[in-house]
Structure formats: structure tokens, C-alpha cells
């Protein structure tokens, strides 16, 4: 058992306290902003959990491939034609987008 709650545990406890204790007592006019606060806390929790899981699995952050270079090449037309290069590009874009979506809005359909 850890000597003290880590940042993730603290944040999760704060989120639960906010949603379960405070939110039901707020006036209806405060719901939209309260919902945004809960949403922001959820995003941060998922982001921290993902980072912690990667660390414990011994994975480093993906090398910062030059997305600027990729963007420049796309605009220049390097991936205009169907083929292995474009398939590879699509795979990269899909994976990167899925990873972001898993943190920002995992229930999105």
C-alpha cells in the first residue's frame, strides 16, 4: 500500500466528491458549468491513467515524429495517390486520432 495517495487517487477522489456530493446540491443554472468541470476532470484522469499505464509497461512516449513534416508533405501532395505510402499515412492518422479520442471522449460514436 502506498504511503500516501498519489496524484491520480487524489484527483479521482476530488472528482467523485464533486459529482456525488456537490453537483446534486447546485442550482439548475449552474449545471452546464458543473458538467464542464466534471468533463474536464474526467479528461485529466484518463490522460494521467494512460500515461501511468505506459510508464508501468516500460513504454516511452512515442517519439515526436515530425508531425509538421507530415503536414507539409500532405499539403504538397505526397500522399495524393493510392498506395502503400497513403495506407501507412492513414494508419498513422487513425491510430493517433483513436488515442486522442480514448482520452477526450471515449464514448463518442
Amino acid at each position, binding site marked *: 500500500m502506498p504511503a500516501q495517495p498519489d496524484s491520480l487517487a487524489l484527483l479521482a477522489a476530488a472528482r467523485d466528491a464533486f459529482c456525488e456530493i456537490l453537483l446534486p446540491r447546485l442550482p439548475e443554472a449552474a449545471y452546464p*458549468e458543473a458538467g464542464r468541470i466534471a468533463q474536464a476532470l474526467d479528461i485529466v484522469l484518463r490522460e494521467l491513467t494512460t500515461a501511468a499505464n505506459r510508464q508501468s509497461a516500460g513504454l516511452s512516449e512515442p517519439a515526436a515524429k515530425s508531425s509538421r513534416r*507530415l503536414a507539409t508533405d*500532405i499539403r504538397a*501532395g505526397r*500522399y495524393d495517390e493510392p498506395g502503400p505510402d497513403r495506407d501507412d499515412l492513414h494508419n498513422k*492518422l487513425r491510430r493517433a486520432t483513436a488515442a486522442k479520442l480514448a482520452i477526450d471522449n471515449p464514448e463518442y460514436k
Partner: protein
Amino acid sequence: MNEADLVAFIAAKTGAGGVRLGALRRLPGGAVKQSWAFDADIAGGSVAGSQTLVLRAPGPSGLPDSIPIGHEFAIHQAAWQAGVPVPEPLWLAAPGAARDAPYYLMRHCPGTADPRHILRERPPAIDHAALALDLAASLARIHRMTPAAIDPPVPPADPALRLIQTCRNHLDQRVTAHPVLEWGLRYLELNRPKPGISTFCHRDFRTGNYLVGEQGLVAILDWEFAGWSDPHEDIGWFCAKCWRFGTPKRAAGGIASRAVFYTGYEEAGGPLVDPERAAFWELAAHIRWAVIALQQADRHISGVEPRLEFALLGRRLAELEHEILNMTGAA
């Protein structure tokens, strides 16, 4: 907002002998400009009586495409004169005319613009089919408007190319690259239709930007992006999945099918809808909205207008990119 100044402005415009104001209440919505409702007791003059007015003013920070408040007022007036359902525009306080100018006043319209209320199906349900037809007819009317106060005054030669260039110009100024948006823009560039007719367009015509009351459509709001374009830009924006608020199967604003909306628009005198051209503009809508979401997040990040709402808009990017990949065959 200085109350004495606002009282003096209303008195000067109406010839009232006395004006008493209630507290200003911020209304939800509006990309950049802010709207504030307040009660006014006006004694004498041209609009005597108790009434609720709305003050529309620029926010502390802006977006590049948002037009100046004076232009918006002129367009709002033109919409009113053209018979488009809008709150009655009243008076413009031009820059320098009052301490907190520029701003303009309009009459308050009762109703809700909240998509969660408008789209819900449980009673008391709004008649979505009738609402879709009213919106389609309003859009056809908007597309027949010829307001004088548009900047630039002539339509762009190629509205699609203008949108692509505008988005790229913004992306070029960012520290972080966005390859999915670049892919979407390249796809638009290679697949864009030949320029067709251009009309006056609202350019933010969507669920969330109109008021609905018990009897249906009340008013079209938020004219701050209006200008010339392909009328399919408004149709594509209205039908884009990102503006359906959790009801993806009803493509037209979350309230009706595309077919119902297109037919209503044509029967109300709008130009024939080309479904392929509309689909192009639906993709363009996702990309333009993604760029606007980044710009909105910048308003928070920069510290100029720190608001959680703006910060979270930056986190909408992933779902928009997901749709862009789906719509371009990359998923």
C-alpha cells in the same frame, strides 16, 4: 457596462423622458460576441413601456472571421427587412458614440436555443418536422438577401478555395501541426466542386443558433460570420454531424432527414440542392469547426479570456478528426 451611459443612449434614441434598467443577464451562446438581456422601463418617447431588451457587444477577445459589430447590426437589420425571423434590431452605438460602444440593442425574443431542449423527444416535444421546414424556408430567404454592408462586397471567385486557404493560413500560425486537418484540407482541395452560384450566407446556421418557442421557430441568431458563399456551405453546416448534438441519425440539425430539409428549402424558393456539393460542404464544416475550436481554445490558453468552456472546445478536436477521417475514406 456603465448603466448611466446605457440609460442616456436609450433616452437619446427614443426621446424618452426617463429610463430605468434592471440588471444585465448574460445569455448563453455566441461564438465571440456576447448578448446580455435586461428589463427596461421607458417613460415616453418612441418605445414607451416596460420591455426586455438585449445588448449585443464584442467580447474581450475575438476570432478572425467574426465581423465587426456595426456590420453585424446592418446585416441583422437587412434580415429583419427581408422577413427572416430575427429579434427586431433597434439601435447601434457606433464606436465613440457611448462609453462602452460599440454595441447594439434589439428586442428580446422568448424561447430557447438549447439543443438539449430542442432535440429531446419526450413531451412536451417540439414538432421537429415543422421546425425543419420553417428553418429551411428561413434559409432560402436568407440566401435571397442582398445586404449592402458585407465586407468584402463581392462574392469570392471560389468559396471552397477561400475556406481551404483561410484554414491553412490559421494552421500555419500554430506551434503544433495538425496532420489530420491537413489531410482533410488536401482532400477538399482535390475534390472541390467547380464554383457555382454565390449568395449571401449566414455561415453559422445550425441548431444552437436559433430560438424555439411553444409555437416553433422564433428567431435566427448569431450573424457574426455572415457573408458571401456557396449556399451549400450553410446547408452542409446545418447537416454536419458535429451539429446534431447526439442525434446523428437525423442529419439535418438533429431534427429531420436531409431529404426533408433539402425539399423544404427548394420548395421555399432556394436554389436546387446538389447532394454531392452539400456533402463536400459537410466535410468542410467539420474542418472549419475544428479550426474554430482551436481558435476558441486559444482564447483560454492565451489568458485573454480564460474560460473552461473555451478550453474544452480544444478537446473536441479528436471527434472532429475522427469524422474527417471517416468522411475521406481514411478510416
